[in-house]
């Protein structure tokens, strides 16, 4: 407790710049049958900003959680400033060693004041470790450094904007006087100005000898303040890149182990464009939020349409409204031959052959203790009824088609679904919806957190399905998926559909630039380096 509340001066001369502050050796962590981190080794020097990059599901967040004392590793060693640890027994132990983490999720107690939130966890249950006047003074100082217009210390956190709430979490971390500061996608909730200010603070901390670990999926941030980059792939640190000697392409190769994501990169080119296929689904005057411009989009049979944009710009709402789950104004119209029907709810969409694979696998799709087979058959369970009773053999027969088609690696299908890896779980869920024989398949970020091989299987499947005439609409947070897979990409910004790219016009740079809108690109130069 004392160590982390010491004044900043106390530690600046303790570690010389360039010396190793945090050293991680061959960490591994598994959860049941799933290996989240296989072999992670890297070190953070005093005074550097060390970026950790990797695809979704490569083990970044597990690694951060190990360093923050949330998970205990199965093997490996962590040393902070020469002190060795097998693991941190609690977040408190990790903080006592000088490691402070700011997480992506904004963690604050909304009903308490800014001051309370900034010093959350600093005091004991019945004792005060820092004097009240001192608290206010230091809180004020750090907030003034992080925000142009800092909130009053007595205002309640729930009244602040999301960005300012995240700034409070960051300020809380900084008040702990970290030796190693971990920013785990902590910048994604920040607005542009707060981010620039944060980076200035990070540079100051580095000058004082603090080591900073930056986890981000944004290359421009790494370019801006990163010193070295460690790449994590499938739980293994595949290498650390020094200095300025890296390119985005090089990192992508390191992250994915190949130049291209899709197995046949030229998939789309080899296929006829589907411009004359019939329209199967369209939106008419669909407004995703009050006052936002309506969206009119037509989706044709056999088309693979990507939904892109920064997190939370309306693409999720758009996809859900296609599934009949939206609460939006305007119409989603399903066309079958010359019959038209307005989609009003999920059951209705289902009866019109629209399937929806939700985003959160655990929260919205999995029945965790139920078997692989039951998880597959649940949405179509009536098809397995023989003479009034369920026939497991009927379900198994139906499932076996999908096992080979999606290359699902299952053991005994009566085992719980949780015995499968994330990628195979996702394949089972997709099989669940393919079994409803949809003509339109809506996928909400289906490759999130699954390994690269499962992704490739999925890409191949999407190619096959669209070739058979199924229309697929897929929300993805990975730029490469859009660039390499999609026939067409719709870009969302502030609950409006701002850009539309056809496959021919898709480039990584152009797509990323469009996320920020033309104006922000000129103003902030956010994407010019991509």
């Amino acid at each position, binding site marked *: 407790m004392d160590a982390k509340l010491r004044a900043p001066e106390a530690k600046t001369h303790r570690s010389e710049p360039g010396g190793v502050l945090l050293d991680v050796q061959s960490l591994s962590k598994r959860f049941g049958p799933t290996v989240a981190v296989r072999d992670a080794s890297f070190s953070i020097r005093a005074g550097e900003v060390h970026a950790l990059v990797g695809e979704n599901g490569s083990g970044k967040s597990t690694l951060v959680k190990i360093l923050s004392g949330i998970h205990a590793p199965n093997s490996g060693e962590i040393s902070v400033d020469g002190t060795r640890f097998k693991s941190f027994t609690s977040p408190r132990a990790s903080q006592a060693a000088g490691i402070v983490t700011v997480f992506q999720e904004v963690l604050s107690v909304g009903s308490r004041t800014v001051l309370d939130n900034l010093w959350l966890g600093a005091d004991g249950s019945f004792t005060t470790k820092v004097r009240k006047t001192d608290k206010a003074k230091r809180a004020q100082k750090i907030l003034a450094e992080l925000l142009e217009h800092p909130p009053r210390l007595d205002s309640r956190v729930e009244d602040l904007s999301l960005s300012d709430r995240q700034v409070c979490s960051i300020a809380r971390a900084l008040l702990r006087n970290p030796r190693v500061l971990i920013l785990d996608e902590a910048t994604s909730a920040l607005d542009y100005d707060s981010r620039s200010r944060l980076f200035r603070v990070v540079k100051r901390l580095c000058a004082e000898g603090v080591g900073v670990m930056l986890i981000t999926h944004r290359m421009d941030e790494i370019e801006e303040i990163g010193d070295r980059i460690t790449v994590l792939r499938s739980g293994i640190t595949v290498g650390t890149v020094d200095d300025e000697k890296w390119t985005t392409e090089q990192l992508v190769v390191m992250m994915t182990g190949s130049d291209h994501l899709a197995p046949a990169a030229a998939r789309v080119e080899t296929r006829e464009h589907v411009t004359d296929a019939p329209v199967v689904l369209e939106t008419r005057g669909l407004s995703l939020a009050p006052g936002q411009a309506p969206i009119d989009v037509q989706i044709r049979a056999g088309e693979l349409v990507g939904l892109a944009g920064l997190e939370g710009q309306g693409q999720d709402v758009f996809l859900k409204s296609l599934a009949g789950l939206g609460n939006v104004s305007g119409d989603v119209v399903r066309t079958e031959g010359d019959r038209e029907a307005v989609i009003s709810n999920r059951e209705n969409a289902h009866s019109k052959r629209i399937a929806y694979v939700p985003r959160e696998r655990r929260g*919205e*799709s*999995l*029945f*965790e203790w139920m078997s692989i087979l*039951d998880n597959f058959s649940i949405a179509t369970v009536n098809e397995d*009824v023989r003479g009034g009773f369920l026939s497991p053999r009927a379900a198994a027969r139906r499932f076996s088609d999908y096992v080979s088609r999606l290359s699902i*690696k299952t053991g005994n299908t009566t085992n719980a679904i949780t015995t499968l890896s994330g990628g195979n779980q996702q394949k089972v869920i997709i099989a669940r919806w393919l079994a409803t024989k949809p003509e339109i398949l809506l996928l909400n970020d289906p490759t999130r957190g699954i390994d690269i091989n499962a992704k490739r299987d999925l890409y191949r499947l999407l190619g096959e399905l669209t070739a058979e005439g199924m229309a697929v609409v897929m929300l993805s947070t990975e730029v490469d998926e859009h660039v390499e897979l999609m026939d067409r990409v719709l870009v969302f910004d502030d609950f409006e559909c701002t850009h539309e790219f056809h496959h021919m016009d898709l480039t990584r740079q152009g797509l990323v630039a469009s996320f920020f809108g033309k104006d922000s690109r000129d103003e902030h130069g956010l994407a010019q380096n991509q």
Partner: protein
Amino acid sequence: MTTLSAAAEPTIDERPRTTELLARAQSKFPLLQIAITVVAFLVGAFTLDGFASENSVKSLLILASLVGLAGIGQTLAILIGGVDMSVANFLVVGAVFVTQFTQLYGMSFTTALLLLVPFTAILGGFVGWVCHRFNVEPLVVTLAMGTFALGLMQIQTEGTIAGGAPGWLMALTSLRSTTFGLPFPPVIAIWAVVTVALAIFIHRTAVGRRMLAAGANGRAAGLSLIKVRRMWIVVFALSALFAGLAGVVLAAFSGTVNTSIGGPYLFQSLAAVIIGGTVFGGPGDYSRTVIGALMLTVITTVLIGHGLATSDQQILYGAVILIAMALYGRGRKMSDRV
């Protein structure tokens, strides 16, 4: 099957050991509970005179069947992720309907039974609706509904609930009765039939599968086109209905009816479900509750034979639930981290 699942993940070098195999078997079937029941029975047979006699075994089964029948609704409620604290009061409702109303209003037993069914189902269904519609704890809502239902009974009978079951009804649970000429009372046969029927319902019908899914993950169930609210209404309606019908059997067993005859069965049925190994929101099934009821009954009977008092029994039930919940809590935490 276990080796296959290990082989499916080639990167993990881990062969299932005997303890793991047992643990997996235990997760599919309540081996441990059966073993404890057998051991407790053997202890009783060797230490207590006449414990293994035919009559003694029959009365053990009758006692267990009462707990088991009272635990039907509780099992369903727990499988869908709720709990039913109104079991005891609906037992009394059932008992009052067939003993009091028949005398009070001069209706036949069949009429009383036919009235009992919609009465309990409507009250229970309302509970399910309230719980799901307003997202409130079934614990509180069922307690309230139980009190409400019991109050209704007391108004009807002007506060003096006391009555007897007709003689033919009492034969249902009498040691000397036979079932179609077979030498055991009908209640045991009823219990066996119900057990088989519920196993089929839970595992081999589309509705049962949907109920399990609704308990396992309500949100995912809704997105998988299951009408989750309807499921809650049906489950709590069935829970109240089965408690009411168990009350009829209890009236037959007790002979006399008063407001407190249901009391012990709330906790015993809950304990039977929990030590059987059914977890809130599943996995589990009714056969586990049957084994739980047998285990509890055998253990308490042996202990009573050795001079255990009622207060000690209560300590036992409480401790059993506490220990079982602590064990499940650990298991769940492990699975949460995956």
